[in-house]
Structure formats: structure tokens, C-alpha cells
């Protein structure tokens, strides 16, 4: 309990509040800009966090992580342009509401579900934390290996309609993950004698290239400004919107639970959480046909899920060192830079910092929701900045930041290469998230598999003797089968119906 309070107190310094506010401001800003999300902001700021104390770095990161969603919601509603990929679902009901002149109502509902959903996610994180010690003891190398595999499978199979492309990028990521010294045998692989590659493909420069640079190239090629002209700008009815979340508390709760669960499993991410929540809400609604035309529940369900997962995503990242998303991967880099190794001992030894982080995240969630409402109109204007002004600045900052990480010019080369790869992937509609997740999870999977084999002296059946491993194996099997189960069930139902018809005809004579 004392750590809980100490964590809060650690945030009360002038500098800490300054960095938290800075993070919130940055988060809202990048949230609004499409293509640049929390991941990009964190990545660009990583070199800057070197000089900060851990609590300050966390305040900054939490500020960003907690507020990008709110920024994304505003443009999703006002301009039908999702600020974050996950907010794409918010457009479905948000923009129609704006077109009906109810933009204020929509933004209000989004703001409150942001805040409330985020808090529910954090409460779940807090609830699980004391158990974290026991959870940690139940998760050893075999479980980490299977968790990594589960993450990889989920990223691939839930990329709706693009499953094969996701599998291809995943495979590419796994290949890249083998570059460097093997943790286990000390063998040098695919470095071609180049010292820079001893640790493999450096993730932070690759991320900068893949997301910041590639997106800017894409926007430059498209030309014009981010927003299309002619969208309406009157913003009223926000208070009603705020209350709407509370009135529809069932939807809010369901969305939060889905978001929390999705967040705990590494490798899925916000877009899936939002689609899942929206989809389930539509399916269980009494009036499904009103969705997509301005049903406020669509916004509530989506935003609650996105924000709940923000809190629970910290669990696999902090407790196991397995990042749940690209954003978490970058956050983990920041942690490591400050000498904190995510994992069981961190949960035990850095409790104050962790609680400080959680408080900062909570504050960011709530404050950004409030600020988002006040800044809705000016924020929308940002999307009209000509990309010719925006792109060079973002790209320059990206390259400089990449170099600054450890003063290696090779980083800049990596950023450039991945910038090209990223652009090509955008052009041909290959999802980039599986690539990043695969680079991270690939190394984790391989190391833990080898360790599991060392534990059992090569006996593969060791996975079956551990309770959690069995549960994970079943989950992997289900994730692979589930997308195929629905059509099978439908086919079976149709066969039964056909059989019934034939029977009726028979006895009918």
C-alpha cells in the first residue's frame, strides 16, 4: 500500500507534472495526426528520455500513451479520418453523427468512454499486480515460448481479410529476428561480419523508419493536406455525450472487459480490441441495423475497449517483458534504457516506479479526455497543415533521433531501409504490425524454446506436463481453428435444415 502512495507522490514534483503534461500534449497532437500515433511519438522521444529520471521518463511516456486515443477520436469523428488505426472503427458511427450535426454529442461520449474505459483497464492491472508474483512463478520458459507463439498466431489470424499477408510479414519479421548473436549458443548469425548487427536488427531505428518515415512518404505521395476540405465544424451537445457513456454502462463495461482481456495477451493490439468490441456489441444489440448510421453505442464500445487495453497491456510488458504492441515494444526500450529489466524482479523491486507509471497513465487518460473536449476545434485545424510542411520536419526529426540513440550512423541507414520497406508495405497493403511483433516475439520464442529443451534435456513432451502450458497450447489450437469454425457451424446448420426439409417432404408424402 505504501508503494501505491509513494508512486503517487513521486509524480507530484514540478518536473514530473511538467513531463506528464508535455506527454499529454504530444499524445493529443500525434493522436490527431493520422499515421503518426503513440508509437511514433514514443520512438522519436526515446533518445530524449535518456537524460530523464525514470519517474520523469514514465510520466512523459504515460502522458503520451494515455492520450493519443483521444486525439485520434476527434479527427475520426470530425473528418472521418482515424488518427490512430484503432480509431478507424470509431469513424463508422462517429462521422455519421457529425454529419447529422451531433459532433459534440459524439465527442462527449468518446471522451467519457475514453476516461472510464481507461480507468477500468488500470483497475484490472492493479487487481492483478499482487498476483503478479505468483503469475510470474507459474510462467517459465515453456510458457513464454507458447505465449510468444500464441501472440504470433493471433496477430496473423485476426488480421481480417489479410491473413496471408500478415503471415508473410510475420515470417519476414521472424527471419529478421535471427540476425545477431544467439543468446543461447553465442553463435553469430547473418551478421556478414558486420559488428553493428551483433545485436540483430536494431528495433528503434527500424520502427522509426517503418512508421514515421514510411507514413510521411505515403502522405507526401498522396499530396494535399491530411484532411479533405468541407467538413463541418460546429461542436455542441458535449455534456449529453458525456452522460451517454454512463447511461449505456452495459456497453461500456463490456467494451472495457474485452479491451482488458485483449490487452493482457501480447501481440494483439488496439485495432483488434476495437473491432472485437464493436462487432460483439452489434451482434448482441436488439437494433443492429442502426449501427454504422450514428448509434452512440458504437463509439462507446470501441473507445472503452481501446483505452482499457492501454492499462492491461502493461501486464505482459512489465511482468514478463513481452510487449503487447509496437507501442509497448518502444516503451520497453525506454524501460531498459533506464536500467529496468521488465520481468519478475522488476515487479518486486521497482514497485514505486510502477505505481508512479500507473498513476501517470490514469491521470493522462482522464486529463486528455477533458482537454480533448476543449481543444476539439483547434485540433481539427492541425489536420489541414500542408503535408509539404509536415513531412520534411517529421522525417528530419526521425533520422536525427535514430542517430542519437547510440551515435551510430548505421541506425540512420536502418531507418532509411525500413522507411522504404514500410512504404512498400503500405502501398501493397501489407500490415506492418505483425512485422514488428515478429521481430520482438521471434527472439523471445527462440530463446525460451531452447531453454525449455535444456530444462527437459530435449524432451518435447515437457509442455504437456505443465498446467499453464497446456492451457496455452489449447488457446493456440483454438485461435488457429476459430476463424474456420464459424463457416463449419453454418454449413452444419444448413445441412441439418436441409435434412429436416427432406424429412418433412418424406413424411408429408
Amino acid at each position, binding site marked *: 500500500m505504501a508503494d501505491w502512495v509513494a508512486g503517487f507522490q513521486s509524480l507530484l514534483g514540478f518536473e514530473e507534472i511538467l513531463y506528464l503534461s508535455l506527454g499529454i500534449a504530444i499524445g493529443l497532437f500525434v493522436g490527431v495526426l493520422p499515421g503518426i500515433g503513440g508509437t511514433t511519438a514514443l520512438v522519436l522521444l526515446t533518445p530524449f528520455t535518456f537524460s530523464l529520471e525514470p519517474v520523469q521518463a514514465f510520466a512523459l511516456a504515460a502522458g503520451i500513451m494515455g492520450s493519443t486515443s483521444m486525439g485520434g477520436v476527434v479527427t475520426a469523428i470530425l473528418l472521418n479520418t482515424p488518427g490512430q488505426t484503432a480509431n478507424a472503427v470509431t469513424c463508422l458511427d462517429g462521422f455519421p453523427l457529425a454529419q447529422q450535426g451531433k459532433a459534440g454529442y459524439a465527442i462527449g461520449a468518446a471522451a467519457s468512454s475514453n476516461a472510464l474505459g481507461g480507468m477500468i483497464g488500470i483497475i484490472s492491472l492493479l487487481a492483478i499486480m499482487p498476483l503478479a508474483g505468483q503469475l*510470474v512463478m507459474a510462467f517459465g*520458459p515453456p510458457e513464454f515460448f507458447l505465449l510468444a507463439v500464441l501472440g504470433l498466431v493471433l496477430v496473423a489470424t485476426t488480421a481480417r481479410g489479410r491473413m496471408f499477408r500478415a503471415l508473410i510479414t510475420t515470417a519476414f519479421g521472424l527471419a529478421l529476428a535471427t540476425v545477431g548473436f544467439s543468446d543461447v549458443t*553465442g553463435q553469430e548469425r547473418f551478421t556478414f561480419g558486420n559488428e553493428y548487427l551483433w545485436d540483430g536488427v536494431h528495433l528503434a531505428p527500424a520502427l522509426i523508419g517503418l512508421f514515421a518515415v514510411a507514413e510521411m512518404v505515403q502522405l507526401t505521395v498522396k499530396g494535399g493536406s491530411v484532411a479533405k476540405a468541407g467538413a463541418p465544424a460546429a461542436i455542441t451537445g458535449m455534456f449529453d455525450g458525456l452522460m451517454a457513456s454512463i447511461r449505456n454502462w452495459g456497453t461500456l463495461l463490456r467494451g472495457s472487459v474485452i479491451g482488458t482481456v485483449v490487452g493482457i495477451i501480447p501481440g494483439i493490439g488496439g485495432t483488434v480490441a476495437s473491432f472485437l468490441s464493436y462487432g460483439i456489441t452489434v451482434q448482441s444489440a436488439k437494433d443492429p441495423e442502426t449501427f454504422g448510421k450514428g448509434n452512440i453505442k458504437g463509439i462507446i464500445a470501441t473507445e472503452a475497449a481501446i483505452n482499457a487495453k492501454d492499462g492491461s497491456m502493461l501486464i505482459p510488458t512489465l511482468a514478463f517483458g513481452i510487449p503487447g504492441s509496437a507501442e509497448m515494444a518502444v516503451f520497453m526500450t525506454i524501460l531498459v534504457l533506464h*536500467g529496468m*529489466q521488465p520481468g519478475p524482479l522488476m515487479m518486486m523491486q521497482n514497485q514505486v516506479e510502477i505505481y508512479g507509471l500507473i498513476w501517470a497513465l490514469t491521470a493522462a487518460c482522464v486529463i486528455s479526455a477533458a482537454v480533448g473536449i476543449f481543444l476539439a476545434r483547434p485540433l481539427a485545424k492541425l489536420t489541414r497543415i500542408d503535408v509539404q*510542411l509536415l513531412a520534411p520536419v517529421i522525417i*528530419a*526529426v526521425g533520422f536525427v533521433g535514430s542517430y542519437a540513440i547510440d551515435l551510430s550512423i548505421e541506425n540512420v541507414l536502418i531507418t532509411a531501409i525500413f522507411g522504404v520497406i514500410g512504404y512498400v508495405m503500405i502501398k501493397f497493403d501489407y500490415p506492418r504490425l505483425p512485422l514488428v511483433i515478429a521481430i520482438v516475439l521471434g527472439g523471445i520464442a527462440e530463446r525460451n524454446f531452447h531453454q525449455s529443451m*535444456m530444462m527437459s534435456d530435449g524432451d518435447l513432451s515437457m509442455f504437456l506436463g505443465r498446467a499453464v502450458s497446456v492451457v496455452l497450447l489449447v488457446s493456440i489450437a483454438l485461435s488457429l481453428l476459430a476463424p474456420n469454425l464459424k463457416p463449419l457451424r453454418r454449413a452444419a446448420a444448413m445441412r441439418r435444415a436441409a435434412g429436416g426439409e427432406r424429412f418433412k417432404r418424406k413424411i408429408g408424402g
Partner: protein
Amino acid sequence: MEINRRAALAGVLASASSLGACTSSGNADGPYPSRDITFIIPVGAGGGTDIYARLIGEGMEKHTPHPTNIIPMNIASGGGGKGITQLFRAPPDGYTVGIMTIPGIFTLQKVRRMPYDLSRFSWLGAVTQGENFGLAVGARSPLRSIGDLQDLARKREITFAASGPEGTAYSATQVSAQMLGLQYRMITGYRGSNDYITGAMRGDSDAVIAALSSIRRLQDGGALRVLASFELESTFPNVPGARELGQPDLAMITAERVIAGPPGMTDELRATLSHAIVQAASDPNVANWANRIGERLNPRDGEAATALVEEMRAFFDRWDIA
């Protein structure tokens, strides 16, 4: 088009000015030292060795013939191999030094075939006394004494959780297990002492060999049970030390942190830096930290450091460390 050019120019200027901020200062004229000295730290920022190196660096600054800055530079890639290689290739002008942990670097060189030759570094000094290691099991383990472990080892291979080859635990585990005559198998690849000790706590492995300060801390916390100390005389109650186990050489298994310069430094430069290192030990910050962590100060100059490295190398060469 106007916007395009202006924007591009602004972008380039922004990058150029920020790049300018990154370059180092100073030029090379005047008596030594006339510019900043780089201190290579081949581990990531924030760990034990890193903090140690930074403190020593600060201490050293006050004892060079002319005031200078000692700039720590973390180069952790390749398990530290990159940093050490960079030190090996640096010009021996006294403006680059580095810190290395023995025996980690011996194993690193052998296993990963690094492009440096340890016998050629200019060893400059050391500040703390290397820590002894010990053998422990998780608190939930059924093993209650070193005898239990030895009995078990007669029936099957026992497993030890350890780091990859760049860590001291890798060689320490192999040497001590061989000395104790145990049938063993290693589970390697854990990242850092936190990780492999947790592995033992969790039951991934039967036991673990780690630095005594870590073992003491976790035993106090109820997570580990120490079965043997490799100190000559054990300071743990009811736990045998190296002499009692009949293997006094176990006390030679220590993690020593030694500061070195590139090969080919002049005797004069070596003496100057050596002096700065030994004097750094008397810096109050260093003494403070050593107290807090439980490290013992034992300042040694260049000659003593060279002898130490030779002694340890001869010792570790006798054992089969794959």
C-alpha cells in the same frame, strides 16, 4: 513549390543543428590530458557495472594531472564484445579507456571468437575486490544441503540456470560444478543475473551459481536457500565454505572489474591513469556506494592489475569451459 523548398530547408537546418549538438568537443594539443577521455562501458546503462564505472570515472577526473572530463559511453552490443573491440582498436593516446569484467571476457573471446586479444590490453588498475560466488537453490527446492545436491548429481545430471557466455555466471558455473565433481547440464541464455536467479527460484533449474551479494539479498527475502559459499571460510551460518568442501580454489572464482586501455600505451600514460584509478578509490562517493552495496575496496595499480588478469586467465584456462 515555394513551400516545398522552404520546408525542406527548414527540415535540413533542424537536423543539422541537432546533429551539431551531438559532436564531441576539444582538440588534441597541449599536455596530457588536454581533452575529454572516453570511458567505454561494455554493458547497458543502469546495471551494477555501469554505475560502478561511472562513479570511478568521476573519481578519476579529480586525479589527472590536468582537469578533464571522463565521458562514459555504454556500448553493450554483442554481449559487450563491440565495446571491448572498440577499446582494442582505439589509439593508445590515453584518451580512451574501458572497463571489463573478468572472467566474462575470456569466455566471450573463446566462444564468440572476438577480434581482440586479451593479452595485449594495457591493464591500468582496479578499485574493488572481486566478489565471491556461491551455490543456491530456490526456497521451494527439496534440497537442503550441498550433500543432498551431490547425492542427486550421482543419480542424474543436475541443471544450473546461467547467463550466456558473456556473463560471469557462465564460466563460474562450469568451473565450480567441475570442481565439485557434479554431473551437470546448463540452461543458458538468461539475460542478466536477475533473470537466471529467478529461473532457479521458479524451478527451471535445480540450482544456481551466483555472486554472494545477490544470493544474500534473496535469501534474506526468503526466495533462495544457499547451500554452499565459495569463500575460503563461509560467512553463512551452517553452510560450508571452499576449504570445508575440500576445494580452496573455489575462492578464486570471482568477478573482477578491471580498467584497461588499448594495446601499446606508453609506460608514462599507464602510470598516470593508474594513479588516477587508485586515487579514485578514496573518493567519498565511491566509498559511500561501496558501503551501500557491500563491495570491498581494494585499489590496485596497473602492475597489480596485469598480474591479476594473468593469474585469473591461467586459472580459467585449466578448466573446460565450452
